[in-house]
C-alpha cells in the first residue's frame, strides 16, 4: 500500500453543495476510515473553485488530480483506486470537447491556466473554517506589516498608488476614498463592508465570503487602522446563510488569535467587526441605503453629498467598500503598489473577478487581468456557447448595465471601454445569451426587476420605470407602435437624469443599450408583429409540419388545452386560437414535426 500522504480539497461552495457535495464528502470520510487511511489522508472543504458547472469537484494533492461531477459511488471508487492503489479513476477526469482527458486540469485547462488570482487567491485552496490555513498563506501578514512598519498615512498612500478602484460597481478610487475619510473630522469612524451582492448574475462576493472570510476581516482592520476607525460592520444578505456562518466563525477565530479586538498585535490599535444581516431589498446595496439599514431603518437611499466619507454610519465618517475591493488590499500591502499596477491596464490596474452565467459552457467564477478582451474571456476561458447556437450578446452589469453584441467582443474589459459601449463593469456579472434570446424580452426582464426593487422614494424611478415596463409589455404582446420606441428613449433619458440614486439612474440602461444595438428586433416586434428569437408568446404560433408528422398522437395527448386535433396515423394540426404556447408538444414529438414560427 503506497503510504503517501494525500490532501483532498473538496469544493464546498454553494453550487457544489447544491449538486451534492455533502454526500460525496461523507462517502469519502466513511471509505477513508474503513481502510484506516484517516491518519494519512486529509479532507479539506474549500470555497468555490470556480468551475461550478462541473460540480461537485475535488482535487487530490500532491498529484493535483482534478475530479469532477462526483457522486458518492465515485468517491468510494476514488478511495479504493486512487488512494489505495495509485490508479487514476478515468471516468471522473475532465474531458476536453475533443475527448482528451486531463488529470491535472487545475494547471492545464485554459479555464484555470489563464486566470490571475488576487482577490480569490485563497478561495478553493484553503479550509475557510481554519484560520491557520489562512495564516499559512501569508494571512494577517499584511495587517502585521501595516501595524508594525507603516503609518496610517503610508497605508493610505500605498492603496492610492496601487490605483485600486472599487469593485462594487462604480469604480471609485479606493485610496482616495480612504484618504477623504481619514481627513474627515470626527472622533468615531467606521469601516463598512458591502456584502449585499444583489446584481443578478454576480456571485464573486459570495465566493470570497464563503471561501476566504479572513481576507475581508484583515482588509477591514487595515482600513480601520488607515482611517482611524475602531469598529467595522459587514452587511451581508440574508440569502447567504453559509457566508454568514463562515464569517461568524472567522471573526471568533480572529479575536482568539488577537487579530481583532483590543490592542491588536500589541499595538495601540483596537478594532472590532460585527455582522449585520440584510432582509431582502436590492436597493440596500446602495451605500447610503445600506447605512440606513445598518442603523435599523428602512433601507432607502438619500441625496449625496454628503458622502459616507463625511457622514456615514451614525453620521460619522465611514469607509464603505465592496468585498472584492477589500480582498485586493492585503496582497497590495504585502507586495506593493507597483506590483499591483503591473497587472491590468493603466486606468484599471489589477484583476477583476467575473461570474460567467447563462448560455456559456464553463459557468462559474474567473479572475483575470483587467483589459482582457471579451472574446478571450467568453471563448478561451468560458468555452463559448453551451447550446451549440451562436452567442448573440453578453449582458454586463446586471440591471444597471447593458448588452454588448458579439461584434464588439474584441473590446478590452475595463471600466472605460465598457462604458463607451453603453454597458458597465458593474460587479462583474456576465450573462451570455444566444440566438434564442429576445432582446426586448431581456430588457423587459430587467425592468421588471427594477420596478420590483425601486424603493419608491423618488418619482422618476418609481413611476417612470413602471411606464417603461408598460410599453415593453405592449411591444412584446404585439401591440407596440413605432412611437413607443421613441417614448422609451425619452422616458429612459429622463429617469437617468432625474433619479435620486444609482438604481434609478441606471435602470433604463438595459433598454437603452438594446435599443441602440438591436433596434431592428424592436422594430420587428412593432412593425411586423414578429419576434425573431421566437420568445414572445403572443407573437409566435405553433405549427405541425405535415411532411414530418406521422400521426402518433403524442402531442394531442400532452396538450393541456386540447388545441391539437387529428386521427391516429393522420397528420395533426394545432388550433392557435386555443393554444397557450406551453411548448409541451414540441418536447414530446419524437419526429421533430412541431415548430414555432413568427408571425
Amino acid at each position, binding site marked *: 500500500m503506497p503510504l503517501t500522504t494525500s490532501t483532498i480539497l473538496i469544493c464546498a461552495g*454553494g*453550487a457544489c*453543495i*447544491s*449538486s451534492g457535495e455533502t454526500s460525496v464528502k461523507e462517502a469519502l470520510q466513511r471509505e477513508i476510515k474503513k481502510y484506516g487511511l484517516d491518519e494519512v489522508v486529509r479532507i479539506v472543504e474549500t470555497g468555490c473553485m470556480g468551475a*461550478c*458547472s462541473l*460540480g461537485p469537484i475535488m482535487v487530490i494533492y500532491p498529484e493535483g488530480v482534478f475530479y469532477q461531477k462526483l457522486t458518492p459511488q465515485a468517491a468510494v471508487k476514488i478511495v479504493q483506486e486512487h488512494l489505495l492503489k495509485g490508479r487514476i479513476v478515468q471516468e471522473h477526469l475532465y474531458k476536453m470537447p475533443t475527448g482528451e482527458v486531463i488529470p491535472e486540469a487545475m494547471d492545464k485547462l485554459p479555464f484555470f491556466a489563464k486566470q490571475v488570482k488576487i482577490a480569490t487567491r485563497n478561495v478553493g485552496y484553503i479550509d475557510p473554517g481554519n484560520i491557520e490555513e489562512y495564516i499559512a498563506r501569508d494571512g494577517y501578514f499584511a495587517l502585521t506589516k501595516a501595524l508594525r512598519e507603516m503609518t496610517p498615512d503610508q497605508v493610505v498612500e500605498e492603496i492610492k498608488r496601487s490605483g485600486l478602484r472599487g469593485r462594487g460597481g462604480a469604480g471609485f478610487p479606493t485610496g482616495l476614498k480612504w484618504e477623504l475619510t481619514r481627513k474627515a473630522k470626527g472622533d468615531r469612524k467606521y469601516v463598512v463592508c458591502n456584502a449585499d*451582492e*444583489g*446584481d*443578478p*448574475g*454576480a*456571485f464573486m*462576493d*459570495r465566493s470570497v465570503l464563503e471561501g476566504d472570510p479572513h481576507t475581508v476581516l484583515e482588509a477591514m482592520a487595515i482600513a480601520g487602522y488607515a482611517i482611524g476607525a475602531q*469598529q467595522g460592520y459587514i452587511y451581508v444578505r*440574508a*440569502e*447567504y*446563510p453559509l457566508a454568514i456562518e463562515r464569517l461568524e466563525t472567522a471573526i471568533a477565530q480572529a479575536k482568539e488569535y488577537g487579530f481583532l479586538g483590543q490592542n491588536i498585535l500589541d499595538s495601540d490599535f483596537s478594532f*472590532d467587526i*460585527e455582522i*449585520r*444581516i*440584510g*432582509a*431582502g*431589498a*436590492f436597493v440596500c446595496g446602495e451605500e447610503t441605503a445600506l447605512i440606513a*439599514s*445598518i*442603523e*435599523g*431603518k*428602512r*433601507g*432607502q437611499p438619500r441625496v449625496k453629498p454628503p458622502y459616507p466619507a463625511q457622514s456615514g454610519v*451614525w453620521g460619522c465618517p465611514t469607509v464603505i467598500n465592496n468585498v472584492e475591493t477589500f480582498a485586493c488590499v492585503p496582497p497590495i500591502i504585502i507586495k506593493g503598489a507597483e506590483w499591483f499596477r503591473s497587472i491590468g491596464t493603466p486606468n484599471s490596474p489589477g484583476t477583476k473577478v467575473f*461570474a*460567467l*452565467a*447563462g*448560455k456559456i459552457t464553463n*459557468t*462559474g*467564477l474567473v479572475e483575470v487581468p483587467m483589459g482582457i478582451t471579451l472574446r478571450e474571456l467568453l471563448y478561451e476561458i468560458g468555452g463559448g456557447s453551451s447550446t451549440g447556437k451562436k452567442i448573440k450578446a453578453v*449582458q454586463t452589469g446586471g440591471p444597471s448595465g447593458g448588452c454588448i453584441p458579439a461584434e464588439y467582443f474584441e473590446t478590452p474589459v475595463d471600466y472605460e471601454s465598457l462604458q463607451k459601449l453603453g454597458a458597465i463593469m458593474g460587479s462583474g*456579472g456576465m*450573462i451570455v*445569451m444566444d440566438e434564442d*434570446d429576445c432582446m426586448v424580452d*431581456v430588457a423587459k*426582464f*430587467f425592468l421588471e*426587476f427594477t420596478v420590483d*426593487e425601486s*424603493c419608491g422614494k423618488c418619482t422618476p424611478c418609481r413611476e417612470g420605470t413602471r411606464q417603461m415596463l408598460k410599453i415593453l409589455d405592449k411591444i412584446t404582446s404585439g401591440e407596440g407602435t413605432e412611437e413607443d420606441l421613441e417614448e422609451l428613449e425619452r422616458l429612459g433619458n429622463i429617469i437617468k437624469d432625474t433619479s435620486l440614486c444609482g438604481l434609478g439612474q441606471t435602470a433604463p440602461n438595459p433598454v437603452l443599450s438594446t435599443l441602440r444595438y438591436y433596434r431592428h428586433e424592436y422594430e420587428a416586434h412593432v412593425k411586423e408583429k414578429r419576434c425573431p428569437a421566437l420568445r414572445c408568446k403572443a407573437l409566435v404560433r405553433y405549427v405541425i409540419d405535415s411532411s414530418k408528422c406521422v400521426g402518433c398522437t403524442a402531442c394531442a395527448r400532452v396538450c393541456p388545452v386540447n388545441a391539437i386535433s387529428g386521427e391516429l396515423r393522420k397528420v395533426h394540426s394545432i388550433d392557435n386560437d386555443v393554444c397557450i404556447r*406551453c411548448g409541451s408538444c414540441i418536447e414530446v414529438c419524437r419526429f421533430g414535426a412541431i415548430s414555432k414560427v413568427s408571425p
Partner: protein
Amino acid sequence: MVDREAVAELVRNIKKQALEERDMLINALHQIQNHFGNYIPVEAAKVVAEELEVPESKVYEVLTFYTMFSTKPRGKYIIRVCVNLPCHVTGGRQIVETLKKTLGIDFDQTTKDGLFTLERTSCLGLCGVAPVIMVNDEYYGDLTPKKVKEIIENLRARGDAR
C-alpha cells in the same frame, strides 16, 4: 397566543450582545422571525417596539420594507425561486410554472396543508448552476421540471412524517 415574555427575552438578549444600541431592530426581527418559525406576529412586533423603546410605527415601517419579513404565518418549507436573468435564460420560466402547478399555488401563497409557501427571490449567487431554488436554508441547482417534482415529493414525504 404570543408569549410576550419570550419575545421580550429575545430582544433583551440581543441588546446585551450588540455594541450599538440603536441598530438592533432588524437583527431583533430576524431572530423573532426564526423564533416563530418563519413569521412575525403583530403582537410580537409590539413587544419589540416596547423593549427597544421605539414607536410601533417604526417597527412596521421596517417590517414591511424588507421582503424577507412576513407578518403572516408561512409554510413549513419556504420555496424561494430565483427569477433573475441567468436563471431565466437557462429554463427558469419552466421551473416557475412547474412549481406553481405542482404546488397548486401562486407566488406568496401557502398550500392548504401548511407545508409550502412559494416566493420569488432575486439572484441567489448560484447562477453557475442555474436555474436555482432555495428551500429554507438549502439550495437546489441545475433544475429541470422533473427534478423540481422530485424535490417537492421528497419534502412532502419528510413533512408528513412529523
